[in-house]
């Protein structure tokens, strides 16, 4: 596989220079290579085509380099000053740091970065028996790169050019590290997803060191997601709401923030399909369908919350009157005395098409009816 990729890349290099990734990251396919075969020392994101070609040719000549065209962004991760790319036999592209840097081991890291180390040990990343974890490779340095230069410099920020996940580091660089391993399940469709396109970093939401459940940077998903989607926070506090603020539902009950095929990151084939997962009684199909209901639940409901029961986008009867203003049925707002003034009764006692459940005082099966006489959703 690796040599095939190498061939593909060389062909691409030869035929179309602008298709070349800025910095392809070589991965050592064999284990007996040496640092002398390294080809990407001092490469940077703006290096010239010539340098890329030369470097890759040299690497391939060594017979030890395969090419992994990594996800977008990984190339800039490799733009950091580098010695040999790390190798652990997995074919993964691991972060590289200062020239000549080597691995020191997590224990050394823990001597200074005790907080980080403990947080790492308290999560699945540290399960060394799982071959897919950082612990099964280079521990801390699986994500941060070989740290000997950092150690020799006595530590400190930027010392040894360790890979860090600070906000100053380009989003794509940071994400590339995580996406090396997180390619399945919920994260399989990250590439091209809404959050990917908007340059959201994995570490914007996840605090790998010191995170909460699922390594979230906030105690609950609701708190996390609404830190950006602040209009949703206001919605969640409205009277008619799903039980998110009671923590009986979460944002991921409906959305997959890592990417889906459906609009709005809905974790189903459509919005309605998602709603039917819990509200299967609305699923039908009914003898008498109400087409706007079938087309999109959000035609009438705001799933994030509303002041209008039950989570309606606007209050009845105006909601219904957005479509229904017919003869053979009233489209008057309310019936007052002939003089045009209230009869002394409050509206709740006066106008049945306004009061209480408004239109659904009578049209009760407006989600669809299975009654032979349910044509107008009375039954």
């Amino acid at each position, binding site marked *: 596989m690796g040599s095939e990729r190498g061939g593909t890349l060389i062909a691409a290099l030869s035929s179309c220079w602008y298709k070349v*990734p800025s910095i392809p990251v070589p991965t050592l396919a064999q284990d007996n290579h040496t640092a002398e075969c390294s080809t990407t020392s001092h490469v940077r994101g703006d290096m010239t085509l010539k340098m890329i070609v030369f470097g890759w040719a040299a690497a391939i000549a060594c017979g030890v380099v395969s090419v992994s065209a990594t996800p977008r962004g990984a190339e800039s991760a490799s733009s950091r000053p580098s010695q040999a790319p790390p190798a652990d036999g997995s074919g993964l592209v691991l972060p590289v740091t200062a020239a000549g840097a080597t691995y020191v081991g997590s224990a050394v890291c823990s001597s200074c970065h005790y907080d980080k180390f403990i947080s790492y040990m308290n999560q699945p990343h540290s399960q060394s028996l799982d071959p897919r974890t950082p612990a099964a490779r280079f521990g801390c340095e699986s994500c941060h790169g070989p740290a000997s230069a950092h150690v020799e410099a006595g530590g400190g920020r930027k010392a040894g050019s360790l890979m860090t996940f600070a906000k100053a580091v380009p989003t794509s660089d940071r994400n590339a590290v995580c996406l090396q391993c997180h390619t399945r399940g919920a994260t399989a469709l990250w590439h091209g997803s809404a959050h990917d396109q908007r340059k959201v970093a994995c570490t914007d939401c996840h605090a790998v060191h010191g995170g909460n459940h699922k390594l979230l940077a906030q105690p609950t998903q609701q708190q996390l997601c609404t830190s950006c989607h602040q209009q949703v*926070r*206001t919605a969640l506090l409205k009277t008619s709401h799903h039980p998110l603020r009671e923590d009986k539902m979460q944002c991921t009950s409906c959305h997959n923030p890592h990417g889906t095929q459906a609009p709005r990151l809905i974790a189903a084939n459509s919005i309605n399909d998602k709603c039917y997962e819990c509200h299967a009684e609305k699923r039908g199909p009914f003898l008498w369908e109400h087409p706007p209901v079938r087309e999109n639940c959000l035609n009438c409901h705001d799933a994030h919350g509303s002041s209008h029961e039950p989570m309606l986008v606007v209050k009845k009867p105006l909601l219904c009157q957005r479509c229904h*203003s017919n003869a053979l049925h009233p489209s*008057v707002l309310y019936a007052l005395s002939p003089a045009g003034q209230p009869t002394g009764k409050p509206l709740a006692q006066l106008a049945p098409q306004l009061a209480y459940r408004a239109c659904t005082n009578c049209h009760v099966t407006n989600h669809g009816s299975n009654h032979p006489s349910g044509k107008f959703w009375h*039954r």
Partner: protein
Amino acid sequence: MSRTQKHWWIVPVVALAMANADESARAAGQDDKAAGGVNASQITAITALAEAAPRDASQAAAPAQRPLAQDATQPDTDFPIWFLKSTRLIDPRLRPSAGIRVPRVSPREGGPLLFPNFPENDPGFVGGQTMPWSIRGSLGLFSVDRERDSSRFQEYRDVRDGTTAGLEAHFRDNRSVFNLLGRQLGRRDQDLTMDGALVGKFLWSAFYDETPHTYAFGAKSLYTGLGTNVLSIADSIQLDLQNSTTLPQATAKLTDYFNQQGQSFDASLRRQKTGVDVTLLSAYPFALKAGFSNESRDGTQLASASFAFYDFSEIPFPVKYDTRELKVTAERARPESRLYWSATYRASDFIDRFQTLTFDNPLRAVDSLGTYTTTFQRGPATGALALPPSNTYQEGSTSVVIKDLPLRSTLNALVSAGYLRQDEALMPFSTNSAVTLSSTTNPSFNATDLAGLPRRTAKTAMNTDTVHVRWTGTLTPKVHFNQQYRLYKLTNHEQPFEMLMFVREDQDPRFPETAGASYRTVLADFTKHTSTSEISYDAPADTHLSATYTFERMNRSFREVAWMNDNKAKVAVDTRRFGMLDLKSWYEFTNRTAAPYDNNQYNDVQGNPVGRPILPLLRKFDEAAYHKHEWQGMVTAYVNDATSVSGHVELVGTNYTDSPFGVLWDRRHAYGVDVTYAPSARWNVFADAGLERVQYEQGARSWRAPSPASAAAPFAPEPGFDSFSNWTALATDIYSSAGLGFEFFIVPEKLRLNMQYTYARSDGQEEFTSPLGTSAADDTNLFVPLPFTDVDDTVWHTFNPEIEYTLSKQVSLSAGWHYEKWRSADYTTDGFVNVNNYQTFFPFSTNANGLAMETGGFLPPPYRVNVLYVRMKVGF
């Protein structure tokens, strides 16, 4: 004391662990380097970093034998200790989790391990230990006053006097993991989750969750048989009401019966969900995941059903639902591979234990033929309602992701097919034995006999097909593209249910108004194509510019508008300047065009091929042409290590371009801001505020024909837009919210004070306008426009100070007071009475007034609740 100094003791622990690991490695016949281990000299290196003896990459990798881990993470070592700390909220019910959040700035060096607002001892504490188990329990004693004042307070939670327990346990050794979290144990909102793993072999999880949904405390009803599908009213009551001579007399009788014999009940659902998931990983790179869950809903829900205009009764209908889900997924994924593949099968069965509901008509003891303007003088003795039918849904899908394609692109695709079926037995057209009318075209019509149905079962079926392809890649090092195509197709396979007449509200036989016509069921059937092209550019300073064009076409059958085209153009900028300023902003313009309106479609559905009933020029909002502008901006500034400020603006405006009736335009403006200030580990403050303003205008025309017989009149004389009978509504909803959180460690690591306040308010109003005509002949609109100032107005406050004292690493005590207040005002319920004689909208008909009987469960009363609690957390 710095973190390093504080943990000086780790040095000998590390050394010991290294030594143990070294022995283990030797015992396994591995040398230090092969194992990727740290040898004895490196123990020295740990204690004297300057003398560290790092290995180079080749040493680390050669030869590639398992395990490659560092000694610190080697199996069978005692190092390091596991804290197994939890950051889960153990009782999130009191504090609205949406209202407040913790600081997003990282703790300062030397600060606590976690974010200061939720330190490590929340909810329990950190018990550093070397044993693999960590167990924590929480026991809270709650005293709640006025807990039953309003169901709104208990809507999705169970906060009452008594105890609330929480349990958390973690186990971990080198081969297995187990986690357990139980919250509100013993309460109606309890949940219990467990998960575990045999590392690298399989994962499993199981959960049990209860969520109440309380609709009403103390609702009142004359019906007996609550919880069943037969709701009865004593025959004597029905007979007495039937024998009334006037509507006021019937109203007075019903009021008396209701007050004297109506029984009080709570309307609520109990939702219980149990599930288990297992994921097999041992066949790497394949993973097989299977999950099963069962959700049952049991209780009583409220709805209305009518017998004629305004003769409606609110009925507590029984809910006994089960939803069973099976999902099996096979997945192939290797991080280093170009190919990801998965296939999923999902089956979902929904079972409703009750298919029908019969409910007595309080106004009638004997069936008689009625009309839609009937009052107590006519109608059925019993009505029947179709409850949600049992159904099944099956779905198969497969998706692939291929990376490393030309242009450094990634392609992902999904194909999915779903099958939704429902074939419940149908009920007769009516329960009303007096409905024996027949039309000339349907002489054998029998409303109460199943033989009168066109078919005996529903035979409804729908298929859903989804195809999605996304291709994303790089054109040049700085220019990226993203192409998507999506198809969602819903196909209705139901054979139209065609009938010559039916019975409305169990009393009103309906014939098509056009001779020879028939009624047909309305089928939903549509196809939606969405194509998106996006191109983006990586500018300097981590700035990302993008432009997107989306075309969406929706083809529909059986609706007035056969197709709609949406053209959307969007530009966006995302930037992080110097890491301290995070700005995201986008603007999108949408132009929707639609097919000409087909009024015949509407008339066909109505059974009136020659028809006329729909208001001319009305365009239903979901299929009307429009122009839409939407702009959002989000910015977060990390002012310094202690402070961050974040703001959000969203402006949306839609103008419906060819629709003089219906929705004319709508606007939505939302603003949000939050501030985090965490100057030290000892205290921090978080505050947020949000404001949202929703406004829209819609128009309609009042109809007041001289009589029903001339129902064609309302629009015929004025088929155009202008009319004195027109009215418009301008509705405005203003939502505001605010939150303030404060935490202060009075005594560091010992005594913590935490306070949180949340405020949410909604303020709605509707204003109406209508031109005044010169006479009743040219202005059939009788109402004088009045503003409705109370439209779902609510105010909600929560305040929760809590103090926690940590006695030791094992025990902590906390005490708190939670205050919550909610009130509402709304014109639809202000002045509500259970039994009411509604005034008709037919000014021309004196017999059209109706008599309604309602439970009062729709809008809960206001509440003001105090909760005092103490909580002890113990762990080991």
